[in-house]
C-alpha cells in the first residue's frame, strides 16, 4: 500500500504530492544540509553522556547553569540551542525545531514536565533505544520539517482535508525512511564523518525507495 495515498478507503495515491516530492528530491543533491552532520555527532555524544553520567550532568556539561529552566519548553529550547550553536551562520531554525520535537517525542509529548521528570524520561528512552533511537527520531522529524518548509507553497494550496492527509503521508514516509536509514548505526562505534555521511546517504536512498513503492 502506498504511503502517498490520501483518500482513505479509496486507495488512490496522491500523484500530485508524489510529483512534488520527487521534484524536491531531484533538486537536492544532498537530502539534508551539511550542517546536519556535526549536529548528528553532537546529538550522539549528548545521548551517550546522558546514558553514562545521567541527564543532570550531561545537561550541565552542555548548557552550564540550568537554574532558569522551569520545565520542558525551557529545556528543549536550551538543548536545541546549545546543540546547534556555531554549526552554521544561518541560525539553524529548522534544526532547532526538529531537535525540540525530538526531545518532546522521546519524553512522551508532555507539554510541561519538571526538569527531573524530563531527565528521567530521557534516560529511560535512551536506555531502551540508545542514541540510535534519538537519531532516528531526529531524522524523521527533521526530514518532514524540511519538506513542510520547502513545499510550503504547494501545501498551502491544499484544502484542509487534503492538507491533513498529505502531511500525514509525509510524516509516514519520513518515519519509515529514518527507521530504515539508522540500520547502518548498528555498525557505529563512534560517529566519524564517513559514518554520518553513509547514514545520510542511506536516508536519501530510503526516501527514493519509498517513492518507488506502490
Amino acid at each position, binding site marked *: 500500500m502506498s504511503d502517498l495515498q490520501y483518500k482513505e478507503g479509496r486507495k488512490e495515491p496522491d500523484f500530485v504530492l508524489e510529483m512534488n516530492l520527487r521534484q524536491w528530491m531531484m533538486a537536492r543533491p544532498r537530502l539534508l544540509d551539511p550542517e546536519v552532520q556535526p549536529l548528528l555527532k553532537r546529538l550522539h555524544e549528548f545521548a551517550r553522556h546522558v546514558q553514562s553520567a545521567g541527564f543532570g550532568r550531561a545537561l550541565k556539561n552542555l548548557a552550564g547553569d540550568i537554574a532558569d529552566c522551569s520545565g520542558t519548553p525551557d529545556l*528543549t529550547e536550551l538543548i536545541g540551542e546549545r546543540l546547534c550553536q556555531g554549526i552554521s551562520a544561518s541560525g539553524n531554525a529548522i534544526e532547532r*525545531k526538529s531537535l525540540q*520535537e525530538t526531545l518532546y517525542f522521546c519524553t512522551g509529548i508532555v*507539554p510541561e514536565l519538571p526538569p527531573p521528570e524530563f531527565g528521567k524520561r530521557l534516560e529511560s528512552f535512551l536506555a531502551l533505544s540508545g542514541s540510535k533511537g534519538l537519531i532516528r527520531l531526529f531524522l524523521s522529524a527533521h526530514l518532514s520539517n524540511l519538506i513542510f518548509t520547502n513545499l510550503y507553497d504547494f501545501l498551502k*494550496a491544499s484544502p*484542509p*482535508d487534503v492538507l*491533513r492527509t498529505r502531511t500525514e503521508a509525509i510524516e509516514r514516509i519520513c518515519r519509515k525512511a529514518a527507521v530504515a536509514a539508522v540500520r547502518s548505526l548498528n555498525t557505529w562505534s563512534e560517529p566519524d564523518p564517513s559514518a554520518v555521511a553513509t547514514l545520510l546517504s542511506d536516508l536519501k536512498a530510503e526516501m527514493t525507495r519509498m517513492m518507488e513503492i506502490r
Partner: protein
Amino acid sequence: MNHARLSWYALHVRSRFEKIVASNLSRRGFEAFLPTYKIRDRLNERHLEIPLFPSYVFCRMQEAEARLMLMIPGVMHIVGTGAGVKPVDEVEMAAVKLVVQSPLHYRPCRFREAGRRVRVAEGALHNLEGILAESGNKIGIVVGISLLKVAVLVEIGDASQVVAVSNTRTPVSRLLTALKPSDLRNAPGQDAEGAIEMSPFPFPSSEVDRTIRCIPATIVFDSSRQASLADARGVPVPARSLLLRTEDFDIHLQIRCERGHREILGQILSRRRKDLAGARFHLLRNGEKLQAATADTLGEFNFTDVPEGDLNLQVDLPYLTIIGALSA
C-alpha cells in the same frame, strides 16, 4: 503590532502536539486558542481534557507571519484553501469560544453545512447562532468552523431557549417551493422517512441532515374524499376536515366557508410531546408566507380570510419544521 489586521488562523500540528504548540505560541507573545473538552477516563476514573479539534491550534496573527509559524515545534502547516492560507471566519471563531467558555456540556460532532439555523435567546449562550440538532429528548446546537469542516455540539436543556433565524443555507421556503402539493397529499402508509427520500428537495439527500428534522406531513384523512357517503345520506357537508400526520404529530384541520370567507381551525397534537404551545403556523403559497398563527396551550390555532387554491402549511417547532400541503 497593528491589531486591526490580526486574524485567527488554524495551525495544523503534529499529533498530540496541540498543547505544546499553544504553549509555545503564548511564550512567543501570540494569542493562541486551543479549544478542549473533558472526557471521562474510564480506566483511571478521572476526567481528561483533550483537544476539541485534534491537530488544530488557532493563532491570532497577520498573514505575513504565517510562514514563521513553521518554526514553532509541532507546527506542520497553516490551513488554507486552494487560494492559499486563509483566516478562520471571525463569527465562527467567536461562536466556538462562546461554547467552550460556557458551563454547558459540549463535544465534537460531525460538521453540518445544511440545517435549521436557530439563535439562543437567553442564558450563557445568548445570541449564539447555529444549527439545531436533536437526539432523543435532548436539544443541541451545532457550531462549526467551515474552513476546517469541524464542529462542536453544545447541549441546551430547553427547546424554548432557541428561536429560528433566517437560514441562508437551507431555507425552508426553498424546500417548500420545490415541493408540490401532490408530492405530499394522499399518501397514507408512506412513512416520514420515506417521504423525505421521495420528495424533490433541491438538495442531494446526503446534504439533508436527518437530525435537523424538516419533515413533510401527509394527509391521511380528507372528508371531501368521503363525500359520496354524505351525499347518499343527503346531509350537507358543513366543513372539510383534514388530518395531516407525520411521525407522532397529528394536525387536525377544519376548513370552513361562510359568506364567501374561508377560515381554518386547527389543532396540533403529539403522542409524546407536551410543549406545543407557541408553535408557529404559516400558510404559504409558492414559498411565500401569507399568514401566520400561534398555537395556544391546547395546540389550537386558526387562520381567517384564507385564500382559495393550493396552499402549504408550515409548522415551526423549536426542534423541527413540519410541512404539509392542502387545498383550501
